[in-house]
């Protein structure tokens, strides 16, 4: 397990030397994913770049159809064969997109694991929960290796194991019970012997987390893990993920549509809209100073717990995936869209909290403004309003009325999550 050690060193370096740019655990760059469909190719993810450092929690937030789940599935190589994937996904300096299924399987579950929203379908209904988790532990050999030969990890070993090394099974079982205890499942010895249908939603999610952390992964991908749960249970699970992450020093990619959950658990956030990352920022900064009009609208759409506010909902809806606008996908709904927004998707503009959007002025050209600064600030936004210059040309033809009508007449095929 030499790469384990590499990561370990990388982590230590990160801690020791803050001035050097830290080594990325996961580095996604210019990722695009296209699915074939009856109505022609559908680009679910477009030019997404995202990086995660060891031990940090990055949120990927967006509404349905934003491509956040597809991005996660791409990392793990879980997409259907027909999908076309461009760009690069590097995990610990290894290119994941070119790996074979077998190589990926080695990484999945061992170094990267995943928890899902639908815990029901992730567990096999005819095996006890304990069996399934101890099985995962045995497959990935994260038990201390003394006395386990290479033979044992082979297919033949699978047959021999239970008889020749009963201790192996017992050890993995013990470890399962320990994990159950760790994730807060009451009466772990007994619950491990039960079947998935005897578990409640929250308990299943705990068991899934136990399975996910059983191999002490470097990266945990959580795809809407609390969406199906009640608030009180959601709070418990978020606490648990937090604890587990601190204890195992696992990086977490947290996918959700819930801004509240993002605020609770993430260090950094990337906001996605219609397959694109539109804004990325440290969590606190995103909530305090959202820059992209979409992020602002998203935050304004959430009723506050303090009350006494009026919502100003954003008109229209997410564009049809088969018929996305050529420029910024948010353009048709954007209150400050300009002419150049309709032409092309804006580049990334690094911003600081103090940056104000450009005013819209009459006349002018369609040129894309240049960035105000070149140094990365940790907060960047794909919106021309944050370029340099003294103003932007207003949009030519599409009127406000068009935008308001955007949600009225158009046939829509948006459905649930992928």
């Amino acid at each position, binding site marked *: 397990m030499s790469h384990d050690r590499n990561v370990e060193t990388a982590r230590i370096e990160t801690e020791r030397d803050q001035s050097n740019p830290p080594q990325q655990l996961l580095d996604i760059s210019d990722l695009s994913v296209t699915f074939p469909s009856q109505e022609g190719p559908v680009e679910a993810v477009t030019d997404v770049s995202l990086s995660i450092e060891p031990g940090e929690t990055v949120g990927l937030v967006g509404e349905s159809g934003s491509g956040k789940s597809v991005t996660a599935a791409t990392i793990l190589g879980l997409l259907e064969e027909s999908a076309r994937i461009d760009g690069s996904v590097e995990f610990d300096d290894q290119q994941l997109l070119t790996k074979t299924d077998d190589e990926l399987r080695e990484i999945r579950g061992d170094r990267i694991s995943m928890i899902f929203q639908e815990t029901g379908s992730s567990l096999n209904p005819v095996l006890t929960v304990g069996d399934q988790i101890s099985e995962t532990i045995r497959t990935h050999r994260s038990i201390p290796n003394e006395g386990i030969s290479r033979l044992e990890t082979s297919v033949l070993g699978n047959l021999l194991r239970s008889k020749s090394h009963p201790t192996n099974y017992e050890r993995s079982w013990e470890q399962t019970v320990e994990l159950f205890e760790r994730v807060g499942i009451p009466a772990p010895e007994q619950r491990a012997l039960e079947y998935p249908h005897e578990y409640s939603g929250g308990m299943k999610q705990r068991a899934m987390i136990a399975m996910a952390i059983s191999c002490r992964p470097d990266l945990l991908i959580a795809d809407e893990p609390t969406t199906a749960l*009640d*608030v009180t249970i959601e709070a418990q699970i978020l606490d648990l993920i937090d604890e587990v992450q601190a204890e195992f020093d696992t990086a977490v990619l947290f996918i959700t549509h819930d801004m509240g959950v993002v605020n609770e658990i993430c260090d950094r956030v990337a906001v996605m809209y219609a397959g694109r990352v539109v804004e990325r920022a440290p969590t606190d900064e995103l909530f305090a100073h959202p820059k992209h009009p979409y992020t602002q609208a998203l935050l304004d759409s959430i009723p506050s*717990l303090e009350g006494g506010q009026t919502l100003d909902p954003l008109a229209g*809806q997410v564009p049809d995936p088969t018929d996305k606008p050529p420029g910024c996908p948010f353009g048709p709904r954007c209150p400050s869209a300009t002419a150049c927004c309709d032409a092309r998707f804006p580049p990334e503009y690094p911003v600081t909290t103090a940056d104000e959007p450009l005013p819209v002025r009459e006349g002018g050209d369609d040129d894309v403004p240049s960035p105000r600064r070149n140094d990365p600030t940790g907060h960047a936004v794909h919106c021309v309003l944050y370029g340099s210059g003294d103003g932007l040309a207003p949009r030519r033809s599409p009127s406000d009325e068009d935008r308001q009508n955007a949600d*009225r007449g158009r046939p829509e095929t*948006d459905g649930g999550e992928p």
Partner: protein
Amino acid sequence: MNANDSQESTPESVGGTEPILEVRDLEKYFRVNEGVLASLVGATQYVRAVDGVSLTLAEGETFGLVGESGCGKSTLARTLLRLEEPTGGSITFRGTELTTLSDRELRPIRSEIQFIHQDPSSSLNPRKRIGDILRRPLELHRDLDETERAAEIRSLLDRVGLDPGMRHRYPHELSGGQKQRVEIARAISVNPSFIVADEPTSALDVTVQAQILELITEIQEEYDLTLVFISHDLRTIRYITDRVGVMYLGELVEVAPTGTIFDEPAHPYTQSLLSAVPEIGGSETAQIRLEGQPPDPIDTPSGCRFHTRCPLAQEACSAVEPESAFVSSDHQYRCHFTDPNTRTGTIGEPTDAAPDRIEDTGPEVSND
């Protein structure tokens, strides 16, 4: 829309406005099918989905029902509309007792009470065009000729912000938000005075959810509707309701004006529910975490139903069922810790209030 509009929940104290709906000790038990053997032995078990709920709704108010999944809030809603037959208690709608009416007698009242469903993808018949879906309630309850009906359908669609040409489409051609708009159009098509909305926005994206909340608010004002709004999302409840009832295991554990519920929650369950909602923006407050999960509704805990998870629970809580107590005339909750002095003790700082104070509240107890 503020807390002052709301009415007290005891019928005696209702002042100027007539209550539109009165619910007394409503019960809905579902029999659990335990197989032939159990039924022979006679050991029939019940899920007590709604267990003794009393509630009075004033004309024009928005009442929120909030609780975790399985607390019985949806069953309560369906029982109010007689979509489920109640197993006990009474529902009085404008003086008419609904529980004893036959289906036929109920039919004219159906137009007064409407329902907005949670899942817009299953609440519209996939085989019918939008226009046909909207036409049927008009045929049943409104005396219009074909031309007027067509005009009405178009104006309804327009009212909920849809293009009238949509009436030729099938539900699967619409987005979730559009379907929910159709659902709202169907509900208001018969000029109801009372609408029950069961999680109408929880299947929608955040931005669409805000649109639908806006629409519901507008429609409510325009049609002067009384609204029961069910949600597990406390933010939505805060935004849209005047008064809130918190449900736990089939019981209403706290009822109060929305502002009171959010600012001075009295019941430990309400307090922990509020504290579990992830903050947006602001600083993180000290959080109360509930241990475990709601108990099995077949085998509800003795005494106070919340005692198994309650951070305040004392021995007596498991033995004696608390009565409804009033903090003020419009704030009522079910907990042994009813003394105003001990009540202010939040969960974080345990009080040594003994539950033997139940007797003190005797005269204020409203229901059994």
